[in-house]
């Protein structure tokens, strides 16, 4: 029983991190109708920037405080993400305005390759570390109730907490602010939004920047967990089943989807994996999402696809 709960908690915390990645997809899809395959590359790029600047800044400025260096690096990386958002809007989205979803999807594939290449050629290809002082050692709780106690990974716990706060902030931003409403309006109908005077270009820069910041936060968390290197970009693959399960347009969907996928894949790997040789969690996550989709084709919380003939 203790082990089951431990798996469950592990899954939930992993799921929270998936949610964070998924959130990047959702934000951009919601506001610009683009399924952004470059999310993983953005994550990698942001994490690389963060890792390198936090190492460079003490050298350049002679700052001893790791904390201060991290904060400065975070803001520099954030500024870079703004630049990336601006460039993407200028070079890709603007010429492709009003194209079909699939075309934009392909364009983001292009962005992904460019960003990955750019990131590694600017920042190098070695494995870098991000040290934001995440607690590494585990704690055991409820030792009285379960034999051997329940092991909680403190790092995951902190990460999940950060993700939760970020999600709450974003939800408020989307629902309560004028910009948020404009973002949702653009998501629904580019042309109409344009016709009532919402400047699309501006909105897209904002939303890609917000997604960039989400990627940065996710990049910092994953980077501090795994080290910053090329395969960090593949973390985004874990976010894909989450977004389709939760719904491409729903922020709460990304959260719940992340939790379901996280728990589902951990339980499957631990309990079903050994029967079939293991290594099933990735495809199990996709199949799980698919099963949900068969019942709700727009994802659990996705906006209903409304068709009128």
């Amino acid at each position: 029983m203790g082990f089951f709960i431990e798996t469950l908690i592990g899954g939930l915390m992993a799921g929270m991190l998936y949610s964070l990645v998924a959130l990047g997809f959702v934000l951009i899809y919601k506001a610009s109708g683009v399924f952004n395959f470059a999310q993983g590359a953005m994550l990698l790029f942001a994490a690389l920037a963060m890792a390198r600047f936090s190492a460079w800044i003490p050298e350049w400025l002679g700052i001893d405080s790791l904390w201060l260096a991290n904060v400065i690096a975070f803001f520099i990386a954030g500024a870079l993400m703004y630049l990336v958002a601006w460039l993407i809007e200028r070079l890709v989205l603007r010429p492709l305005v009003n194209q079909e979803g699939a075309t934009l999807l392909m364009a983001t594939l292009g962005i992904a390759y460019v960003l990955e290449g750019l990131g590694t050629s600017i920042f190098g290809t070695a494995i870098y570390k991000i040290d934001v002082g995440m607690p590494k050692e585990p704690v055991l709780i409820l030792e009285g109730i379960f034999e051997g106690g329940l092991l909680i990974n403190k790092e995951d716990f902190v990460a999940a907490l950060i993700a939760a706060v970020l999600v709450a902030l974003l939800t408020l931003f989307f629902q309560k602010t004028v910009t948020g409403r404009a973002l949702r309006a653009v998501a629904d109908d580019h042309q109409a939004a344009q016709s009532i005077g919402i400047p699309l270009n501006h909105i897209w820069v904002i939303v890609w920047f917000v997604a960039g910041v989400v990627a940065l936060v996710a990049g910092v968390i994953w980077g501090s967990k795994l080290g910053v290197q090329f395969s960090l970009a593949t973390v985004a693959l874990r976010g894909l089943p989450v977004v389709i399960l939760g719904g491409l347009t729903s922020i709460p969907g990304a959260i719940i989807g992340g939790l379901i996928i996280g728990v589902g894949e951990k339980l499957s790997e631990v309990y079903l994996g050994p029967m079939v040789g293991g290594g099933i969690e990735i495809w199990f996550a996709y199949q799980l999402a698919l099963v949900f989709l068969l019942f709700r084709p727009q994802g659990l919380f996705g906006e209903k696809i409304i068709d009128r003939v």
Partner: protein
Amino acid sequence: MPGGINGVKIIFEECETAYATDRGVECYERLKGKNGGATLFQTLSTGATFALTEKAPVDKIPLITAGYGRSESQNGAVFTWNFPLLGTYWVGAEVAIQHIAKKLGGVANLKGKKIALVYHDSPYGKEPIPVLQELGKMHGFEVQLLPVAHPGVEQKATWLQIRQQKPDFVLLWGWGVMNSTALREAQSTGYPREKMMGIWWAGAEPDVKDVAEGAKGYSAMTLQHGAEPNSRVVKDVLDLVYAKGQGTGPKDEVGQVLYMRGLISAMLGVEGVRKAQERFGKGKVMTGEQVRWGLENLNLDQKTLDNMGFASVMRPVQTSCLDHMGSSWVRVHTWNGSKWEFTTPDWYQADEKLLRPTVMLASGKYAEEKKLKPRTPEECKL
């Protein structure tokens, strides 16, 4: 000192394969005919080695897979073009068990123990499985297999299983980011790193550097060399190459585990060609076939190695037509939080008596499948 090998200049090409087998094969296809035909290939990937094993005989180009590749290709009678010099993963696995037995105070104590293998789910990661299972049967320990999907950034489930099953030791057959992730997960699930051992791909600086203190106590089987910053050959490289500004990689990586692996692989290739020239003519360009002979007749004794600056880095290598491996020495080194240190006693030798039958069985099966006729000792002499 004349340049090249007895004056024959070396041309080399490289491909970044990102460890993808298809790209490795593509690279091979692209380069094999270039500049009058390739003399030898170093695949640096087990997946690519598997894929090329059937192509090399057609193109007659030897593959040097020093410390990796197909373990059964030690049998040169069947795998005429593969050269897993300096040991294979089977050697590594066997020594890992020797080392564990020593820690436990004798082979007898292996009985009833549980050893988990956390492996990269690829040809490379699967290599040690048959030997470990064989040894498990022999010594009475249980082998638990835990595959990790490429690239290995998600191992939570794996380590939850380890936490549940509490294996006595964990062997790590990882690649790239999988290794540091495994160590971090071990740290955050509280599995003692002292009970973890990796193969050399999981035992280099990048694997542990960023985990730093968290990886303290973790050890790895090196196939002969480890990090050798003080060896003469490294000093030579620094003096003769880097001092002139001709180095290609970061200077501080010279002498690290993976650098040494590349350096030794290159040395073995050059020595193979040199040996071939001894027979087929010095100062001539060697064909793949001639170099194969050279590689099959390598005899690098301690003196030669010392002269080249490899003193205390590696032990003698002597190959033959039937033994393409040439050496089965292994060392174990341990991460102390900031650098790799060799554990004492230094050297282990894999039990050839034990491994040989497995090699013969596997290579025999391969020959049968591919309808190959193994070379006889007589053919070898040609």
